């Protein structure tokens, strides 16, 4: 048959590439030029009308690529045509995109070579539209097809495409914006006229500051440098949340307690709580006029104090907030440990404790390391809790926030502090890798696996209970006061029951045109739902794919790639927010003010958890399972879908839940990115908290919590548990 030498995927991609220049609108339609002709035309027609003539250069690589349609080409020739054509297309697109901006040449040196005017006019262009993005995608994918034909990744086009696609996305949406903001840390403006100079010396001088590195707290009552504060807090919270998460995971995964579902529910509550609310609840419970403080002072004459404002309060709030993530990561790992090993140990006469100590605990190591890493990094990046409860205790994230938005604005200082934070994260990452080492943690193999999970030794069980019970009670108090707060006039002052907060936020008035959502929260509520619904599946899919690539495929640049995926997670949200404006407010990738930038920001901020969960779970799965599937002739995509994915269910749930919940609860990154049309629930809540309207803020939070809870249950039902073929104890 004609063209039968080419797979359909290549044909489809070629069709997409041609459609991108012939049919799809090349430029972005923004509000101010919707009426002009430029906005809606495809690149080819723009050139034909004598506009944006440089776009003609984009056709050249397409002709090169289309040469593969010729009959009687060798595979080698096709490979060369696809790889070079794809590469050329990428270079052309990015080159013209970055060289020509809104107001003429962005790269003046190009203008000096070819002349400042092109066909009698200064060249200007807007950001890319659908045509531009389709062209980019097609070029990248066709290049991958070519590279696969050279035998890269055993010639598996799916794997090569996945790697280049992930690489491209991470470069565009993580590396590119982050590098923009880091470059700014050593660039100083020459004055209002524009132009910048490099100033490394000034940057170094800014780093030499006792408020960053000082160790005065060791010898006096003064505060230590902010780096030591952050580091100390991160280690305490990382270790604490891992321990608590482990206790919860062991109880939920291995014990026979009757009330396990309650524990599971309780353990996820904090992760679905909007920011500021936990801090606020802690103040109302333990502040100087707090509920418990009052009881203690009346009953035991313990003087009222402000211990909650400072490191204790922040630690407590962060433990509350981040233990659930550790729990979710560890639960997957605990459930994945094969009972046969533990049974083998017991057959060899090891008692329960020895089995736990020598088999179970060592197998938990990757899980523990990942949980600690995530807890540590989360603590470093958290800014809501230190803001509310920090008192005089400063951490890097708040310092960075106020260096960007405070009354003494200093972006280069913010970027430098962000750099320090990044180095700390990098170090944690490295330590984790060293600690896990090269040991083998595989416990899920294709072999019969019908052992019974070992029962926890009594000692371990009781010590877990020692953590789990008080912590659960504590959380009940915190959430009790949150629920009460939504239904009383003013928390901490006037406890008359009322529904007026819900009315303000979520009023629905019937009108002639049907129901009218007149409450002030509806807009942000719907926008948040929309953004969360779109970003969640993306985040999970991309996270799983990247996690799979990182733990199962070998390719060069893997460690750099792995590090880049952690970047957006490690950098404080405020810096990410500013970097996104710097990178995506101007062509070629112009998307500020749209809902898309929010979706993208969330996807790339939340994928690390999906990646880490996938990697932790996959480290337990014997690669011979995939190999068996591949040997039997299944493609790598089929293997991923039929073998790996079902075993990854806990990781899928973690990734879906985490990204959905994060979209509804994070603040700092998106505070610069929200627009009138796409305002988010959290920014609305923060505004209410700032205005002191705790009632409305808490009422809104209650609604969000209920919604997220319903969503988690839905996800759990939809994805389901993995069937590991284990017996139940009779």
């Amino acid at each position, binding site marked *: 048959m004609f063209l039968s030498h080419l*797979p359909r*995927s290549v044909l489809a991609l070629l069709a*997409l590439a041609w459609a991108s220049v012939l049919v799809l609108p090349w430029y*972005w339609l923004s*509000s*101010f030029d*919707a*009426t002009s002709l430029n906005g809606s035309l495809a690149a080819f027609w723009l050139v034909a009308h004598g506009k944006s003539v440089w776009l003609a250069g984009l056709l050249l690589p397409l002709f090169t690529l289309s040469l593969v349609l010729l009959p009687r080409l060798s595979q080698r020739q096709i490979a060369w045509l696809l790889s070079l054509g794809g590469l050329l297309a990428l270079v052309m697109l990015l080159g013209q995109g970055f060289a020509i901006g*809104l*107001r003429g040449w962005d790269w003046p040196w190009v203008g000096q070579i070819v002349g400042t005017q092109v066909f009698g006019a200064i060249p200007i262009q807007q950001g890319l539209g659908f045509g531009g993005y*389709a062209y980019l*995608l097609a070029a990248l*994918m066709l290049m991958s097809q070519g590279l696969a034909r050279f035998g890269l990744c055993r010639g598996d086009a*799916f794997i090569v*495409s996945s790697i280049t696609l992930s690489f491209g996305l991470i470069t565009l949406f993580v590396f590119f914006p982050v590098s923009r903001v880091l470059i700014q840390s050593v660039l100083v403006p020459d004055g*209002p006229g524009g132009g910048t100079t490099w100033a490394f010396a000034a940057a170094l001088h800014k780093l030499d500051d006792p408020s960053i590195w000082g160790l005065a707290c060791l010898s006096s*009552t*003064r*505060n230590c440098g902010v780096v030591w504060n952050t580091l100390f807090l991160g280690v305490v919270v990382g270790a604490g949340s891992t321990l608590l998460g482990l206790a919860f995971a062991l109880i939920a995964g291995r014990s026979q307690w009757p009330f396990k579902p309650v524990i599971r529910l309780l353990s996820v509550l904090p992760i679905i709580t909007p920011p500021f609310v936990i801090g606020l609840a802690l*103040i109302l419970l333990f502040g*100087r*006029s707090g509920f418990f403080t009052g009881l203690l002072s009346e009953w035991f004459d313990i003087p009222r104090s*402000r211990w909650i*404002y400072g490191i204790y309060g922040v630690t407590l709030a962060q433990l509350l907030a981040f233990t659930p993530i550790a729990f979710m990561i560890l639960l997957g790992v605990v459930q994945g440990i094969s009972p046969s090993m533990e049974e083998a140990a017991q057959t060899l006469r090891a008692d329960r404790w020895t089995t736990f100590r020598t088999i179970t605990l060592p197998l938990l190591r990757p899980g523990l390391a990942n949980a600690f890493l995530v807890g540590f990094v989360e603590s470093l990046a958290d800014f809501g809790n230190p803001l509310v409860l920090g008192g005089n205790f400063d951490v890097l994230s*708040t310092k960075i926030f*106020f260096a*960007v*938005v*405070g*009354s003494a*604005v200093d972006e280069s200082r913010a970027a430098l502090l962000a750099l320090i934070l990044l180095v700390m994260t990098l170090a944690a990452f490295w330590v984790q890798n060293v600690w896990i080492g090269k040991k083998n943690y595989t416990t899920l193999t294709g072999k019969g696996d019908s052992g019974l999970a070992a029962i926890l030794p009594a000692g371990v069980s009781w010590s877990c209970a020692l953590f789990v019970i008080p912590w659960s009670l504590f959380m009940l108090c915190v959430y009790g006061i949150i629920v009460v707060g939504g239904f009383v006039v*003013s928390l901490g*002052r006037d406890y008359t029951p009322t529904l007026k907060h819900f009315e303000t936020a979520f009023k629905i008035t019937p009108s002639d045109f049907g129901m009218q959502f007149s409450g*002030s929260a509806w807009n942000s509520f719907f926008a948040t739902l929309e953004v969360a619904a*779109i970003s969640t599946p993306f985040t999970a899919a991309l996270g799983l794919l990247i996690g799979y690539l990182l733990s199962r495929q070998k390719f060069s640049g893997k460690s750099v790639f792995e590090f880049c995926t952690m970047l957006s997670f490690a950098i404080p949200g405020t810096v990410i927010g*500013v970097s996104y*404006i*710097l990178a995506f*407010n*101007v062509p070629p990738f112009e*998307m*500020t003010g*749209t*809902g*898309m930038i929010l*979706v993208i920001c969330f996807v790339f901020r939340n994928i690390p958890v999906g990646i880490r969960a996938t990697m932790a779970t996959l480290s337990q799965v014997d690669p011979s399972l995939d190999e068996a599937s591949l040997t039997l002739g299944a*493609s790598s*995509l*089929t293997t991923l879908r039929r073998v790996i994915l079902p075993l990854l269910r806990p990781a899928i749930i973690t990734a879906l839940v985490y990204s959905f919940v994060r979209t509804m609860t994070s603040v700092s990154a998106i*505070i*610069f990115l*929200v*627009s*009138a049309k*796409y305002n988010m629930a959290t920014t609305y809540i923060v*505004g209410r908290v*700032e*205005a*002191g*309207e705790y009632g409305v803020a808490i009422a809104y939070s209650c609604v969000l919590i209920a919604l997220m809870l319903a969503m988690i249950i839905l996800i759990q039902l939809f994805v389901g548990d993995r069937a590991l073929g284990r017996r139940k104890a009779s």
Partner: protein
Amino acid sequence: MRQAFKYFGTVAGFVMGLAAVSSPASAQQSLTLICSVQEEWCRPMAEQFEKETGIKVLMTRKSTGETYAQLKAEASNPKVDIWWGGTGDTHLQAAEDGLTEAYESPMLPQMHDWSAKIWKQSNGRTIGIYSGALGFGYNTKMLAQKNTPEPRCWADLINPKFRDEVQVADPNSSGTAYTLIATMVQMMGEDKAFDYMKALHKNINQYTKSGAAPSKATSLGETTIGIGFLHDYVATAVEGAPVKIVAPCEGTGYEIGSMSIVKGAKNLDAAKKWYDWALTPKAQSLAAPAKSYQIQSNKATPVPAQAPKMEEMKLIDFDFAKYGSSAERKRLLARWDAEVRNAAK
């Protein structure tokens, strides 16, 4: 390979799906507004303007610092048309950086002097829309327990009886607290002002990040005394908190909330319409029902009964040009960090 085809189909489908959220704004005349006062006040303003002019208002509420950071990052391709509300010295900073546009409104003659003054200082780039005096509030319940006389003056706050009972924001993060430093320096002279703040430091229980936080802490009884803008304390008192407002006897400084048109605004005509409209008494009288008790800039706007009476206070002649400049601000903050923040208690 069929799977591969399906896979690429899915990817393409997702990309198309994204189109849904990234739909461009409509072509109808519109105005992109950033509002830096409380949401409760922003909303009726936007709605009323829409009703009167038919111009669609795309309103976002952001704090002053956040707005300034955003305008700066967006300078090469501004997305905002007008910035309404928020501390004047941040607006002055934006004017200094050339981020905003000069405009002379026909409403100018109706403004109070302080409003026109900041307009002149900024070469017409920003205008005062409201002002609020600095002072403090105390929790009457907590004070009764302490058994101390009511504080009336700045000098009363350094009374050792109030040890660990006063709260104020950190001037590095809050414009409110910086206004306090600038006020003290102008009232007492720089060295005496720093002596005062060092003495005050002994009584401070916490330097909060946000300028309005001490008013909430005072209303909840987390601190006995909070320093800040008086209208914040009035708002808590109106809601029923046991808070009493004090305009200090020695005199005090004040803030001016401002409004600026963004340079390169895409909807300049609509921005000018908003500018003129927002200065009318009718628009300004929307503040009080939204529990915002600042004094409005139009002389004809009625003053709400609950508002602190500016004419009964001793207001200093605040030099916004000097104390709003980046250089002076950096110098004073550095001195405050070195001498006050880390001083022993």
